[in-house]
């Protein structure tokens, strides 16, 4: 009698164990010819184990579970999914809120379109984490969001909202102005600043007002709340600048207010590399062009240096290479192309950046700049299983992306 009971208990315990095992997701194992972890030395003939969307183990002497589904990449190169710190916005309507040049509380996350073809294309070029910035027509343009390009709703895509406050310090916010000729100003297009000095003044004024707001705390003002949070370092500040003089102005204002900055675009960053390094401001470069194509590029971004990334990196600046290919306020917000970040990195090397640095600039460095390096940017135990399988050296012109894995799922296969 007791024996039967014991056997019954034993059996039910086994069944229970089996059920819990069934409940757990199956392991995926990748056998790779070469693993570029980015955070450490490359691993030849390595194995990566994935479970529940995360990397559970990585190395050469790894035991692969019996029931694991194995991806054979033994003749391939494996690297982390790319991080685009300034991606093409997957938004269907207009990005730019022209009604005011100060829109700090504008959140691009409210306008994301999960069905956007931008997302489907960008995944095929290997990007698995994206930072989407608000439109660039306003001086204080709003809040950006960090997303992964897969999800049925915007909420499913977002990994970090209110990721950074975008400030544009160039001539972009002065565009679209209509100078009143014979009639008094009737639309908001007359109210915008028209000179660079006005741009700097308006920025200082808003910081000044925000400081007053923090001190007095009279009534709730959503715009002031955001600027105040940025002043207090709670929200990262990303300043889009092209010219060296504007970079200097931005650094100057940052020093006045004791702020940390991330610099975007930085077309003339190579001219002031040491100053940027001294300020320890990371830089997100892009778009790369040989000759200026948009009017704002003509006006402010004519003096290019193809080796901008290399020169900045050499001076000790943390450099991320991104698409940043949102055209200026006067042109359509969304394009139907997407910049291939691997090509961008290959050409950065061609123009003078160190290869390891270039690979980092499209993976770990942007992840660090965005504040999500705890989960993406390199192949390490515990990080998200965002993985690219390539046919060869990522910086070679003839290398293809064979497979893109996002959170452990294959989202693209050649």
């Amino acid at each position: 009698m007791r024996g039967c009971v014991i056997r019954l208990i034993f059996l039910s315990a086994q069944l229970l164990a089996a059920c819990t095992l069934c409940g757990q997701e199956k392991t995926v194992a990748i056998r790779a010819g070469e693993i570029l972890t980015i955070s450490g030395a490359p691993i030849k003939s390595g194995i990566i184990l994935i479970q529940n969307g995360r990397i559970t183990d990585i190395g050469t002497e790894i035991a692969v579970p019996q029931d694991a589904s194995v991806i054979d990449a033994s003749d391939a190169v494996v690297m982390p999914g790319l991080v685009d710190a300034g991606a093409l916005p997957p938004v269907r309507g207009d990005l730019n809120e022209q009604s005011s040049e100060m829109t700090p509380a504008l959140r691009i996350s409210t306008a994301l379109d999960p069905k956007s073809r931008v997302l489907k294309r960008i995944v095929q070029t290997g990007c698995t984490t994206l930072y989407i910035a608000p439109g660039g027509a306003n001086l204080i343009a709003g809040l950006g969001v960090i997303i992964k390009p897969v999800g049925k709703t915007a909420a499913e895509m977002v990994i970090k909202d209110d990721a950074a406050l975008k400030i544009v310090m160039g001539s972009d916010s002065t565009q679209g102005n209509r100078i009143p000729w014979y009639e008094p100003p009737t639309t908001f297009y007359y109210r915008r600043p028209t000179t660079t000095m006005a741009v700097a003044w308006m920025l200082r004024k808003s910081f000044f007002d925000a400081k007053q707001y923090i001190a007095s705390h009279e009534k709730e003002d959503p715009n002031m709340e955001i600027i105040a949070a940025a002043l207090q370092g709670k929200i990262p500040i990303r300043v889009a600048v092209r010219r060296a003089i504007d970079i200097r102005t931005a650094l100057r204002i940052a020093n006045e207010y004791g702020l940390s900055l991330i610099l975007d675009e930085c077309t003339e960053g190579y001219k002031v590399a040491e100053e940027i390094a001294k300020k320890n401001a990371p830089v997100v470069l892009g778009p790369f062009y040989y000759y200026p194509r948009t009017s704002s590029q003509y006006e402010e971004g004519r003096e290019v240096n193809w080796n901008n990334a290399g020169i900045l990196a050499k001076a000790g600046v943390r450099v991320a290479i991104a698409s940043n290919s949102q055209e200026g306020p006067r042109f359509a917000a969304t394009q139907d192309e997407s910049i291939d970040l691997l090509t961008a990195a290959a050409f950065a090397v061609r123009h003078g950046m160190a290869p390891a640095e270039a690979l980092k600039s499209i993976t770990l460095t942007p992840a660090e700049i965005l504040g999500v390096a705890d989960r993406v940017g390199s192949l390490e135990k515990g990080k998200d299983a965002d993985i690219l399988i390539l046919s060869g050296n990522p910086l070679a012109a003839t290398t293809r992306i064979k497979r893109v894995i996002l959170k452990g799922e294959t989202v693209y296969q050649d």
Partner: protein
Amino acid sequence: MSGSDAVTERKLLLTILSLSLCAAPVMAGAGQQTLVIKAGKVWPITGSAITNGLVVIENGKITAVGANLAIPEGAKILEMPDKHIMPGLIDGHCHLGLSLDVFAEIEETVSAVTPDMQILDAFNPLAADVTKALRSGVTTVLLAPGYKNPIAAQMAVVKLPGGKKDAGVINRSAGVKFSLGNEALMSDRRPTSRPGLIAQVREELNKAGQYQEGKFDPRAEILKRAIQGQLPVHIYCNAVDEILAAIIIIDEYKLKAVIVGAREADEIAEMLAERNIPLIYMPTLLLSNDKDLKRVGRIAAAGVKVAFASYAPRTNLSDLRTSAIIAAKYGLAPELALKGLTINAAEILGIAQRLGSIEPGKDADLVILSGDPLELTSGVEMVIINGDIVYQKEQK
């Protein structure tokens, strides 16, 4: 005055009184006989179709419907053995009778937020398109403003004018229309961007939440009722991201909401079904590919309540039924198609206690067709509103 005179007076008064009491029903029903319609097929909508059925109408209301009913004395009988009779169609969203230049009247584009305006103030019951509309079989419409305002005017539910009694306005303020589509983005007025659109709608709803009674703020007052669920909100949006944005706002502000347009709603139908958010679907006539035409069938199959709209004059009111027919041909269950033209619309518009089906007690708004309502070849033969024949097709 002598005693017998007083008695005579009293007798006279009594006679007059009793006579008038007798006459009262006659006066009340003056010109309105009891009408009995015998039709080849009766579609009550809330029950199964009745072959060779009867509908009894008295004093502008339906008093009985069925087969083998007793016919009241003195009733006028309409014999229509090969015709179909169904409730008057209800158009969930149109811009009928809004003056000469329709688009100028319905789009208050100078200001983005106008919930204090009422579309009924722009309605012209004598307009040509209203009188023409009577032959469409549509008897009740929801009048709405346009698509260019993030928060537009209040909508109205109106019975098409006609008949001896002016039945006109059923609800002057049937709800507020919101537009979360990219159509609401203008270049010279806020909002010019998509995130700006969402931000503005939120701002207005937040302001409404803080509205204090007694202060003069007509917009906030109206939107406060919307947040409290007392005033329905019809949100115009078509693309998936627009509908998702609408759902976020509906959830956040607990709105009693209806989605209008909803072209791609099938892709997130479960989200609408679990929240019981009904749809007023766009005219299928405006869709051009198979993929889009199959959507509404899938939405209804997922359990979402769907009604139809004509967006008149973008499509004709007579195309309302065509929309349902096309939807049925592309997968919408036929009974849901019929419901979409009648009871679903009535329920969504809050008028189901008097309209939307052929049931005793409901208004006698009926349409008689030459054949099955879901056949394109069927035409409208007669339209009855409040028991009066307002349209009759000429017999050759």
